[in-house]
């Protein structure tokens, strides 16, 4: 190879390599199967389209939010994902940057509930996780149909509750509280119900793998938990079914948020746009059974049966006000810990 040819080759390589090297964003994902799907549905296609590198930090919502707050003066994330309503507090503290339809064109196609907070600076919801009753179909003598059935004594010894330090655990408690006559101002009825269930033999765990362990090894029948996790258990070979309680289906919104104070906003906005695209959402539903928020998303019948699909169905979802949860989280977590303490 002549010197000129070598030079030309180097120059060509640089021309291709340079933008990819210059561009990278940092995001958080939730680990495990979620992160795998995240990679397949959003991150890899995004990298293929833009050539940008995506650094993934595995951190659950609460941990990620704690980091975001601690890094206030020198933020390290470009896009941060939350499943526990942390974006509301984040936006009010000025930690997030509002997105607009110019920056994120897919916003126009989202259902209204998924972009209700965008005007306040909160990121849009790119997925919905519905919470209902995860039931071991092969073991339970008669299937529950409503949330109130959780209180039936014959289930108690086979019931798995989740600590409210877990986002779905919090939603489960608030639903129990609601059917027991409580409200956002008063969760004592819910705590009393938990206390009654524990006395009758129910167990409490803190993380989702422990729920799997309870179902696989410890003869659990019912756990109030999310539809995506029911699917995880099904894939692990357990005969598990997701039942929506008659009283309603509370849901957790998973949002993609733009972090304030970072210099590659344009690229980060593109990443959020990718998360909201019908392709990415269909891919996520297919992989993990999350409910899509883009009205243009098309699902196969098999996938659609497992999620809340379509404008009308999505209207039936309910959301406990994350602001009320945030305002009370510390006090409730302490009260819950005291209730379950042995």
């Amino acid at each position, binding site marked *: 190879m002549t010197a000129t040819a070598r030079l030309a080759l180097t120059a060509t390589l640089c021309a291709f390599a340079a933008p990819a090297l210059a561009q990278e964003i940092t995001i958080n994902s939730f680990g495990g199967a979620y992160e795998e799907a995240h990679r397949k549905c959003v991150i890899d296609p995004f990298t293929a389209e833009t050539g940008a590198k995506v650094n993934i930090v595995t951190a659950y919502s*609460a941990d990620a939010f*704690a980091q975001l707050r601690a890094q206030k003066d020198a933020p390290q994330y470009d896009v941060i994902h939350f499943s526990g309503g942390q974006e509301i507090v984040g936006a009010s503290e000025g930690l997030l940057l509002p997105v607009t339809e110019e920056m994120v064109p897919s916003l126009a196609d989202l259902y209204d509930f998924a972009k209700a907070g965008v005007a306040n600076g909160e990121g849009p919801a790119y997925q919905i996780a519905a919470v209902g009753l995860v039931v071991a179909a092969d073991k339970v003598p008669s299937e529950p149909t409503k949330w109130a059935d959780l209180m039936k004594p014959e289930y108690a010894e086979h019931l798995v509750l989740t600590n409210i330090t877990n986002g779905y655990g919090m939603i489960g408690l608030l639903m129990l509280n609601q059917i027991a006559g409580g409200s956002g101002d008063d969760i004592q009825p819910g705590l009393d119900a938990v206390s009654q269930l524990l006395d009758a033999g129910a167990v*409490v765990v803190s993380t989702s793998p422990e729920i799997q*362990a309870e179902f696989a090894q410890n003869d659990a029948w019912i756990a109030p938990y999310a539809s995506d996790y029911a699917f995880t258990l099904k894939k692990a070979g357990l005969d598990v079914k997701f039942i929506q309680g008659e009283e309603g289906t509370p849901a957790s919104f998973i949002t993609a948020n733009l972090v304030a104070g970072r210099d590659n906003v344009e690229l980060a906005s593109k990443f959020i746009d990718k998360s909201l695209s019908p392709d990415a959402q269909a891919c996520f539903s297919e992989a993990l059974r999350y409910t899509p928020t883009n009205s243009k998303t098309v699902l196969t019948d098999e996938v659609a049966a497992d999620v809340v699909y379509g404008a009308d169905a999505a209207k039936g979802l309910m959301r406990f006000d994350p602001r009320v949860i945030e305002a009370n989280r*510390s006090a409730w*977590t302490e009260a819950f*810990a005291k209730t*379950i303490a*042995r």
Partner: protein
Amino acid sequence: MTDRRETWLFLLPGLALLVLGFVLPITRMLVLSVQGPDGFTTDQFARFFQDGFYPSILWRTVYLSAIITAVCAVIGFPLSYIMARSGPRVRLWLVIMVILPLMTSVVVRTFGWMVLLGRNGLIASTLRDFDLVGRSFQLMHTETAILLGMVQVLLPFMVLSLLGVIVRLDPRLEEAARTMGCSFLQTMRMVVLPLAAPGLLAGSILVFTLSASSFVTPALLGGPRIEVLAGSIYKNVTQTLDWNFAAAQAVILFAGIALLLVPYLRLGRRAHG
């Protein structure tokens, strides 16, 4: 003069690390624990002692750590003695066996215990086969489970501390004791144990402080209904974002451990002569 400068040069990296990694964070933690919206406050400490809940968590942390330390010492002493008195090849294999648990991730190891201790685990199902326990019996989510998991993790610290001391003891001292009429157990009690005291002490301090500050194993094996203080601190830092209260709890844990360690260190000075 050069000697002195060199001494400082050798000290500098360690000292810098100590200041950056220990003194500064601890100071920050102390400040956070008494910081309120309107300046200085002792509210966080008052909250800790307002009812029996948090003191009971502190008490559980202390007594579990003490039992874990004692169990490690009881298992670790004979093991280290046998290791010290066996040939180099056998000793090497024994050391590898003892430190092997440290080579797997704490979560993986703990999930192993979860399978064994659960409702349908080996232990519960065996006991059930003999009709000794009820259908819902399990060791998971009990203090016993925490004890088992922690002893497995912390035993190497005790054994290695003891091994370093016992291996240097002159075997002729034991022989002398035996020829003077001591039985094997008397030799252990009157010769080996007192001479191994510095190792026992160092191991105990390591095991005690490590178990008082660990939260992953207790959280998984004890479950959310049996909390330890380090777990409660972790929860306040990461979940409820109540850093001031977390700092206050950390100060109390720190003070508690320091309070227990001072007499222990005094004992150590005596043991060293």
